[in-house]
């Protein structure tokens, strides 16, 4: 079943066409990866899928609802969650508070109840705390719960962002290079985590350069190049696609032979 539909998305920055006519569909509970060389438009696409950029052309539909032109907080309310390539952790909070902030949409708290700290608010706050601890456990950060975010190592912060995004219980989770800058062990933890999430029925859209990870976790791939769709399909189909090999994977033996010669 399709959860997210992208139709003919286009975006220019001044004279630069960052994206042209990209269409693509995301199935519920599957892991979809977006790959492509630097500057292919992957992050631009994610920014349009979270309302941070408004596309010049095309539409974004979530569960059949047109979200085009809405603000980022409205995309979030509709059920889109994300992490960031360059960390956007709340460094002025603890790890636990970061995740509790992720519960924002799930907390129906009136300003008056917040100011007066009503008994029901106190109970909700305790429940929110427990839920956040549970999520930290899920991404393997139990021991960091009470640590200040600015005292945490990079790999832990990457997982903290995932826990924070999950806290909102999004229908689609967008991960922007979750393994970037991680060592091999940490990257393996991320791919185990993504597989676990997929197993739990979370729909994941992954932007990633680590091809081993992409090939291992993805059900479906979208290949972008210079803001256009180059190819789409299962990891197998895409890795055999000559256009992809030429533009991105660049494995081609002829090139090796040429350099030998």
């Amino acid at each position, binding site marked *: 079943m399709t959860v997210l539909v992208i139709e003919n998305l286009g975006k220019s920055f001044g004279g630069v066409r960052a994206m042209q006519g990209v269409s693509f569909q995301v199935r519920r509970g599957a892991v979809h990866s977006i790959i492509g060389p630097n500057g292919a438009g992957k992050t631009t696409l994610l920014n349009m899928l979270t309302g941070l950029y408004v596309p010049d052309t095309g539409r974004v539909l979530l569960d059949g609802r047109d979200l085009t032109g809405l*603000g980022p*907080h409205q995309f979030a309310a509709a059920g889109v*969650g*994300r992490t960031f390539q360059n960390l956007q952790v709340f460094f002025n909070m603890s790890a636990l508070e970061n995740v509790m*902030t992720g519960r924002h949409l799930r907390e129906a708290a009136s300003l008056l109840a917040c*100011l007066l700290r009503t008994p029901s608010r106190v109970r909700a706050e305790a429940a929110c705390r427990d839920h956040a601890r549970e999520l930290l456990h899920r991404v393997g950060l139990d021991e960091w719960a009470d640590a200040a975010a600015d005292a945490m190592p990079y790999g832990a912060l990457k997982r903290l962002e995932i826990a924070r995004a999950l806290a909102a219980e999004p229908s689609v989770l967008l991960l922007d290079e979750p393994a970037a800058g991680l060592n091999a062990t940490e990257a393996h933890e991320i791919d185990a985590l993504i597989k676990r999430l997929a197993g739990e029925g979370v729909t994941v859209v992954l932007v990633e350069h680590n091809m081993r990870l992409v090939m291992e976790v993805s059900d479906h791939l979208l290949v972008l190049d210079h803001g256009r769709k180059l190819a789409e399909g299962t990891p197998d189909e895409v890795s055999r696609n000559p256009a992809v090999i030429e533009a991105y994977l660049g494995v081609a033996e002829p090139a090796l032979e040429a350099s030998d010669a």
Partner: protein
Amino acid sequence: MAHAALSVSEPTAPGSRRWMQPRTGGLALLAGVIVLLPLVMRNNYFYEIAILVALNAIVCVGLNLLIGYAGQISLGHAGFFALGGYGSALLAGTAGWPVWASLPFAVAAVGVLALLVGRPTLRLRGHYLAMATLGLGVIVSIVLSTEDKLTGGPDGLSVPPIVLFGWTVQGEHTWYAIVGAALVGTVWLALNLIESPAGRALRALHGSEVAAQTLGIDAARHKLRVFVISAVLAALAGALMAHYAGFITPAKASFMHSVELVIMVVFGGMASVFGAVVGAAVLTTLPQVLTVLKDYEMMVFGAVLIATMVFLPQGIVPSLQRLFALSRRR
């Protein structure tokens, strides 16, 4: 099963240390100081200063929510302070309302004004609010000075006392109790707000506005709400001040007064409720103490400000907290 047992026992565990937490401990300390202070206050002059400290602290706690938590600066809070005072004074004096109606009405009206000013400006990123409030403060100040038929002009306006059920609220001791209770209440509300989803939303916006928005936090709405709260607290303090002093002048709306309030917040420590109280206390009493220096008063005052910001750059309370935490870790 093991995990379920853990989560049940957890909420009670920190309870044993509740008095150690800054929230309850700080609130108890503040209340204790307010209750015990009369033991050392020898005459009405001390009470006058203490009342002034508490009123400034109420404004600063609100302003600190805006500056320290929402990351927005207001350069017009003296305007809200004066409007609260003049509003209640005019409704009670000229229009003959009872003060129990004039004061809440004036304070609420200032809240509405803040909403109207904040709504268009807080949608924009950057420090547009500082510009808008600067303009508003100047306008309020000019109007209060020039509309002398209504406001009494630069000479000021006499303000009727608060009368509740035939009892006239007067005397330094009574006012000290009222204003002290109001301060404790304000601090309690501010602490509650910070440790709630609304407070986390503000801190999140300060930490990373982009990330906050992608978690569903409506930046403009949350900034606007805290701006309105801070304006309402300023108006409340202004109205209490007017009825306490029995007199109000346009100087209360001056740009300098707005700047003083911002300095108190920064001096005491941004993003610290108790910092705002300490900042207000120190910077309200310091000029009184320094009057013995006569001509050198402003020089020493300036030197104290500079030294504090050099040696305690995060403001008094957060910097001292950090030093304390470091010394305990060793």
